[in-house]
């Protein structure tokens, strides 16, 4: 029985570039300091009015084309985002409409920065069970409308950008596809990377003017606490996924490490002896787009011919939750 393969992948990043210099002014920071501290070159923001479902729609066209499929060939949609178009229903439902497909199922999941790994492994189960043959996996974030652009946000805001990606998955030709997959969560200290409000657990109303004025609806990120944990987790997932896949790290053509702070992702790779030419810190070029940075980086690498058919790639993510995961994939 064939493994679940990525039959096509596409991405879309909005054209508007926000430089460190531009952001630094708003955040009362220095652009060069910001660049050095974050390891992020620039980020892209949508023009207000677009949601994750719009980004995913843009990414769907090239992904479907690469897979040689039409939207109507899809059996199921899966959408992972932290910044949905609406509180509910989910972005998956909206994408179903925008693709103009029949009322197939649209599963909306929440798994934060590991959203692509989690949703790919969930889609893999639907395919391997024989329930659905062709599944569209969308991961997209519009974070620019959720950020604090006052100096209070200087520690968090520069990391994030907007973007989306789509992978079309189904049974691949022999030898191709998911070789191994791991995912995990340790919520012991989930407050290290979170956004508290609106909070359904606040009685009697989940959001007040006071909550807003305190900025508790903005993401909070404690990198000092999180970075060392992230390094350990990248080492753990890469070891586990390689073991499960019966594959040595040397056989992996390229590693994609998805983490909010690119220098930490590179440090993790370096600590495993992975040469810098074989790893992409997915958030470095266009900011951290949550779970979406990972498939965007994969799509860009495929597009540029840096990885191609037959190559084994390792997609790994660590992020809010704390969630982590990795997939070993033969393209």
């Amino acid at each position, binding site marked *: 029985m064939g493994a679940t393969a990525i039959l096509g992948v596409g991405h879309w990043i909005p054209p508007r570039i926000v430089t460190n210099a531009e952001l630094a002014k708003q955040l009362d920071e220095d652009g060069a300091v910001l660049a050095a501290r974050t390891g992020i070159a620039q980020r892209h923001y949508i023009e207000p009015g677009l949601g994750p479902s719009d980004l995913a729609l843009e990414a769907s066209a090239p992904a479907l084309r690469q897979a040689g499929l039409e939207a109507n060939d899809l059996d199921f949609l899966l959408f992972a985002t932290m910044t949905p178009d609406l*509180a509910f229903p989910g972005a998956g439902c909206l994408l179903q409409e925008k693709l103009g497909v029949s*009322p197939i199922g649209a599963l909306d999941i929440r798994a934060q920065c590991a959203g692509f790994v989690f949703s790919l492994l969930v889609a893999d189960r639907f395919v391997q069970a024989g329930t659905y043959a062709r599944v569209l996996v969308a991961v997209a974030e519009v974070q620019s*409308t959720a950020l604090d652009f006052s100096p209070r946000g200087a520690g968090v805001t520069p990391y994030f950008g907007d973007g989306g990606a789509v992978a079309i998955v189904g049974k691949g030709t022999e030898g191709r596809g998911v070789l191994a997959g791991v995912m995990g969560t*340790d919520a012991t200290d989930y407050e290290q990377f979170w956004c508290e409000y*609106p909070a359904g657990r606040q*009685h009697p109303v989940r959001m007040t003017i006071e909550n807003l004025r305190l900025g508790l609806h903005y993401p909070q990120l404690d990198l000092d606490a999180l970075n060392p944990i992230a390094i350990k987790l990248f080492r753990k997932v890469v070891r586990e996924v390689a073991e499960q896949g019966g594959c040595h790290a040397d056989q992996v053509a390229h590693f994609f490490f998805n983490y909010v702070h690119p220098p930490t992702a590179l440090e993790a790779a370096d600590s495993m002896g992975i040469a810098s030419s074989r790893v992409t810190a997915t958030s470095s070029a266009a900011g951290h787009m949550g779970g979406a940075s990972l498939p965007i980086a994969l799509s860009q690498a495929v597009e540029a011919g840096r990885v191609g058919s037959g190559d084994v790639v390792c997609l790994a993510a660590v992020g809010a939750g704390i969630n982590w995961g990795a997939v070993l994939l033969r393209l």
Partner: protein
Amino acid sequence: MQSTDASRKARILGIGHYVPPTVFTNADLTRVMDTTEEWIEQRTGILERHFVDRDLGSSDLGVLAARDALTAAETAPEDVDLILFATLSPDVDAPATACMLQRALGVRDVPALDVRNQCSGFLYGLSVADQFVRTGAARRVLLVGAEVHSSGLDLTTRGRDVGVIFGDGAGAVVLGPEDRPDHGILSTHLHAEGRYARKLQVEVPTSLRAPRIDEEMVAGEEGRLFPKMDGRYVFRHAVTRFPEVIREALDANGLEVANIDLLIPHQANLRISQMVAATLELPEEKVFNNISRYGNTTAGSIPIALHEALLAGRIAAGDLVCLAAFGSGFTWASALIRW
């Protein structure tokens, strides 16, 4: 990854539910909004609902349901391979409420994710769990459906059309492999139709606006943090899609309506459930309803009802149980279980 044994099915090994103790009757609602007890009962079949009375989230209700389900399944929390949490009223904006549940259970490393499919959330989650168990990727899946609606309802005259319908509550199931042939979860069927997304929604926070939440949205006249529903529209689609997705499940298994021993519809509105039963020509004793006591608990409603049906002796070994849901999205779904 893992090999597939095509004959293997998943089954529900244990089930639990929890509703907070504070009861809010229709008479209580008449004191905070311009409505009448008769109007609420006539339109929805609801007599009362349960609301939390302090800072409690969906995970706080969910963990109590989960502990009972785990005990019933003779499963220790650390033996769970996957945690799925279905809700539309998360504890916090991010991360997933499944994370809060994991911490409350005192376990680590188990992957935890939220399913955000509104009234169909429990059945979408059941379908995900089913795939993991059937393919051998998980031996124990904990699936919780829970809502704390009360912190998000407009319990004034402005919000009465929606506010009177919902209640707080949680249900949980533990799934694992089925040993008996032809028993367990026979199939699941999932659908979505986003063109009607705005017919039943909570708009805010919305990534479509910059900023996605502000003072006007929180405290303004429009009440954009509160659910909005075109009730007639939802009703009309529900009474079509429920029978359709139930028949789809039966057809997929070569069964007929007459084979159903118990239908447990998502408890959206008693009038919807009654019309669905009438359309299918299912006698009243084959349809389980408890909305009169809980209101619509969204992702919680099916597991709460399933547990109560079991406790009431309404399900015997070998019975064919049909679960079905319709709601915001629109999403709709069904599952057939040979108990």
